[in-house]
């Protein structure tokens, strides 16, 4: 993980320089833009990072359900690279954090066994000049929408970072074939269950470890995604994502909500 902006392409520096002169860009909706201003933050600019990574499948024992550690590492590194570059762009702008982060994976026909990992978001900065960077001194990242960011800030918490844990798991072939021999009865497939359970646990534990590194009080907005990418149906990546948060004050400024009955469908 490199810290120097030399990692970013030349075009990026030029674009970021323009943003530092006062122009901001963002893919936030108008609603999100206004809500971010409400909690005292101002958008600085659209930031992004990407990495094209070779994600070819490694050899493995077909009869055994196991984690494919090399692939796990690859998926993790690729996303880390993309996120880090996005954070570097944000740091270059002097941002306190990045909101509305989206992680995407692109596959191209012409590059089998390779995928492009992209992280995009909007860099923001507190208007009162007080630094809101996280424990590691880097801009916080979060995939919270502008609305969720506003609500979170009202509860006296602030995001620290988008945390993720990933695990690429291979589900044994033979195990399923054997059990399906007794098809017709509705039974649990214990090997399958065990395998999925373990994979998900690994992903979530790794995510929690990242949150601990940031001294977080908790993780909000956790979701678990399962994808086979280009590997066929017996190999699945389990990706656990969430936003680590830290409590900044005991004061909750949320006023009591008004209850309404909406008159529109």
């Amino acid at each position, binding site marked *: 993980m490199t810290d120097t902006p030399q990692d970013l392409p030349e075009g990026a520096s030029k674009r970021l320089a323009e943003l530092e002169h006062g122009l901001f860009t963002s893919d936030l909706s108008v609603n999100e833009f*206004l*809500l971010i201003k409400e909690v005292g933050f101002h958008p600085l600019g659209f930031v992004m990072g990407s990495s094209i990574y070779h994600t070819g499948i490694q050899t493995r024992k077909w009869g055994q359900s196991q984690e494919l550690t090399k692939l796990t590492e690859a998926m993790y590194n690729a996303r880390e690279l993309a996120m880090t570059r996005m954070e570097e762009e944000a740091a270059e702008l002097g941002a306190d954090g990045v909101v509305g982060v989206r992680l995407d994976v692109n596959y191209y026909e012409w590059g089998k066994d390779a995928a492009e990992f992209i992280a995009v978001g909007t860099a923001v900065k507190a208007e009162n000049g007080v630094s809101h960077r996280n424990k590691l001194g880097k801009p916080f990242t979060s995939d919270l929408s502008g*609305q969720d960011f*506003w*609500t979170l800030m009202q509860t006296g918490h602030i995001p620290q970072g988008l945390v993720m844990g990933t695990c690429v798991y291979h589900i044994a072939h033979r195990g399923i074939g054997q059990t399906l021999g007794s098809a017709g009865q509705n039974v649990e497939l214990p090997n399958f269950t065990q395998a999925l359970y373990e994979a998900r646990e690994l992903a979530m534990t790794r995510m929690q470890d990242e949150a601990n590194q940031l001294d977080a009080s908790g993780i909000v907005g956790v979701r678990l995604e399962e994808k086979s990418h280009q590997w066929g149906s017996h190999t699945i990546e389990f990706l656990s994502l969430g936003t680590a948060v830290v409590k900044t004050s005991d004061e909750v400024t949320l006023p009591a*909500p*008004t209850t*309404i009955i909406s*008159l*529109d*469908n």
Partner: protein
Amino acid sequence: MDDVPGDLPEAAARRFSEGAFTSGLTVPDFAACLQMGLEPAGYVQGFCVMKWGSWQFYPGAGPYGGYGPNVAGTHGGYSESWQCPHGFVSAEHRVWGQNYEQPWVEDAWANGFTSAYERLIEEASALGAHGIVGLVDTSAPLGDLGVLEFRVQGTAVKVKDGPPPADGRPWTTYLAGQRLAKLIEAGYMPVSIAATVASVRVWASCITAYLTEGTNPGWTSQAVGAEIEQTARAQMAVRRIARERVRAQLGGDSLHGASMGTRERELGEGDADLECILRGNRVRRFKEFDPMPAPRPTVRLS
């Protein structure tokens, strides 16, 4: 409900005499209509099938029928030409190009739509309706037969304690339910729907053909990557004509909630048939402009 206009098919007469109403409205729209004092009287529709696509026998279509430019420009309407700058003629190299409006297509569409619409009005009048809401109109080719079917459908309603329409023709609108209620609250009354089609043919000049095919840049004597001016002007014209045609139908009223869609059919070598359909609600102010106060922004917690 006893005397059904002679034009309506027998099946419609049977349907109306049965008594219970049918409605194409969704449940929330239905509930909203009742709250506004609009009582559904029946589901009404109108159809018309037109022969479509062969224009050579249409009057005014010029010496090439509908397939070539009108040399004399006798059909009127929008027309623009471009001369070939190259100074030679060959079988494949046109002497000039022309954008021209195709009033025969526009009139045929208007005929088909109006016929379907008039049948809808007849059905609604037979029910004693005051208005028709939730109108849906489509025009679609029927299989491969070279025909276009026009369909208009909606829910006929009566305004509780309201007057029957003075000229016997119910008012019509695409809106229904809550959106109609808001339109009324904003001070507008629907008069009728308005819909029109504009049709422009691009008879490509040599330059347009080269630019569209990307060939022979040397012959275009234009910078590489130039604007395809003829086609751009046709695109602007077809929209302008649609807007003008709709305005002519408005009679001074306003068009609300319009939708404009354009379709291009490429005929090869830069030639194209452009069609723009514009439809919307013709509405009229019935009370002074009285805006709501600025709404209060909220953030919802769910």
